[in-house]
């Protein structure tokens, strides 16, 4: 009977759960990603749609859009990044607390898209490290949700404790 159980059983194992610190930290982090909507063009409309009731990003624990970089974990760059805006994007990224992630939403944020011109930065990865790229012009809300789930998978596989130690030693220096 007991041998067949796959789930946690308090009677057998007591009030203790044994796991890895990475697993716990990542589990907590990936289920409360607070996005920072860096809405720069039409992609931001799809971003709003994915937050609204029909697509409902809160099913995946990512509904808490914060307009303050200090409170957010993941910057969703939704739209065309012009060279004039690039410094603002970078500065907002710098203001976000660690750990932080970036999603480049749509063709413009990923590569400059159809704007092969003097005014548009050819991909936001020139100034910030991007974790997930989403194709589309603009991407449908489902595509964004898929990207965010991919980001959750990525967060789930991070070596959080090691990164934490690395960051602490960097601060100490």
């Amino acid at each position, binding site marked *: 009977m007991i041998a067949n159980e796959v789930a946690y059983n308090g009677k057998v194992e007591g009030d203790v759960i044994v796991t890895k610190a990475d697993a716990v930290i990542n589990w907590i982090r990936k289920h409360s990603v607070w996005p920072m909507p860096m809405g720069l063009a039409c992609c931001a409309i799809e971003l709003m749609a994915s937050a609204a009731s029909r697509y409902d990003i809160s099913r995946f624990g990512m509904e808490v859009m914060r307009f303050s970089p200090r409170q957010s974990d993941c910057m969703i760059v939704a739209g065309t990044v012009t060279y*004039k805006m690039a410094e603002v994007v970078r500065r907002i990224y710098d203001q976000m607390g660690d750990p932080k992630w970036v999603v480049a939403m749509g063709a413009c944020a990923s590569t400059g898209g159809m*704007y092969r011109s003097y005014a*548009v930065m050819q991909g936001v990865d020139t100034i910030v490290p991007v974790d997930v790229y989403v194709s589309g012009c603009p991407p449908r809300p489902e595509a964004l949700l898929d990207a965010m789930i991919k980001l959750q998978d990525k967060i789930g596989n991070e070596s959080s404790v090691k990164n934490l130690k690395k960051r602490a030693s960097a601060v100490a220096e």
Partner: protein
Amino acid sequence: MIDQDFTNSLLAKHDYLSKISHADCLTLSCLPADWVDFAKFLNQEEAFELLVDLTAIDQGDTADIRFEVVAHFYSRIHHDYLRVHIDCLDNESPEVDSIASIYPAADWHEREAFDMFGIIFTGHPNLKRILMWDEYPYHPLRKEFPLAGIDTPLPAADVVEATGASVEPAPMMGGPFVSPGSGPMSDAEPRAKDESWTEQIEKPV
């Protein structure tokens, strides 16, 4: 609507005006010295209260008059548009008087024309760039400026230090999509003018 009588009386009243033939609306050419007076007259006497658009044209550096400023007015009394061309007499540093004190709408339009074409609007209350950043050294809508852009440093020193980013010419990748600009309309549709160069393939000089 503006009729022939109106046009004739306007031309008779102001000797600095001349008519340019256009299919759509009455188009006048105005001498730059009298531009402010004419704008004041249009606003106060002829009920052209709305400045719809103000922009500029670059005719290329072989033209006698390289830069023209073009303004569109609309009158709710006449129910019609009026277009005025003003030649910039100096091709090197084009200058035109500002009409921002008469039409407040001209303020940002003149800043845009200054930003994109480098036309100086004398008497403008705040003539600085509106789209590109203040330190940007070029005027992007001039004919000699390439669509892809020119290597330029970014304005923020701290961002440049952190990322090493700068303004780089955009890869053309089959583009740009342009109209040949001549020939019958049916053949003049925008086509990919294949100036292919990418991050890997060098830009042709």
